[in-house]
């Protein structure tokens, strides 16, 4: 049990569609980060949310957006899907911005066809 819950586990979407991925952080954690992991690569930082605000952002286009709710859960939205968006999307929660490491969820495997 990772402590971080992500849904759905797998998703197939058509190019041009929009997708929403969800994450519930580990109990007690207040910060949620999203990462994209392509096959055979390390995770790439998308953005981080803390106190319902986007605190930091990686090199991803505006098609990628997110939200954090008062209960610390978070959503990742991707608009106008491209084939290259196919990847494992990982949510990582932490306390105090990750000073003590991150707890990753099992991820959502997104396939864009």
């Amino acid at each position, binding site marked *: 049990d990772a402590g971080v819950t992500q849904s759905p586990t797998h998703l197939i979407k058509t190019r041009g569609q929009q997708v929403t991925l969800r994450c519930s952080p580990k109990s007690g954690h207040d910060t949620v*980060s999203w990462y994209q992991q392509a096959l055979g690569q*390390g995770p790439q930082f998308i953005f*981080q949310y803390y106190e319902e605000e986007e*605190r930091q952002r990686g090199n991803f286009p505006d098609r990628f957006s997110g939200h954090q709710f008062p209960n610390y859960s978070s959503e990742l939205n991707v608009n106008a899907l491209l084939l290259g968006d196919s990847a494992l999307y990982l949510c990582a929660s932490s306390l105090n911005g990750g000073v003590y*490491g991150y707890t990753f969820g099992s991820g959502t495997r997104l396939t864009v066809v």
Partner: protein
Amino acid sequence: GQQVMQIPQYQHVQEGEDFTTYCNSSTTLSNIQWYKQRPGGHPVFLIQLVKSGEVKKQKRLTFQFGEAKKNSSLHITATQTTDVGTYFCAGPYLSSNTGKLIFGQGTTLQVKP
């Protein structure tokens, strides 16, 4: 931009042999974190090193942080089949203590029984 590089990319060992993966950052890091990802799984936090020259042990795993805080290593003594997976190092972006982590591309370890 800031980069974290790992070598080797792959390592195949016989069970009982030792294994080492090396991590090098293009910039000085405030800390370095290590994660393990089993095949089909998600990254799991192993350890964080903060001090220059720090050495930490977890059973058969030994982690080192270089004196210049730009490199690190993970050494596994007497590998077991349970050690199979990809080992990632990750450092904070621009040496900040919060937010974005830059991951290496990982070292995938295969252990032959």
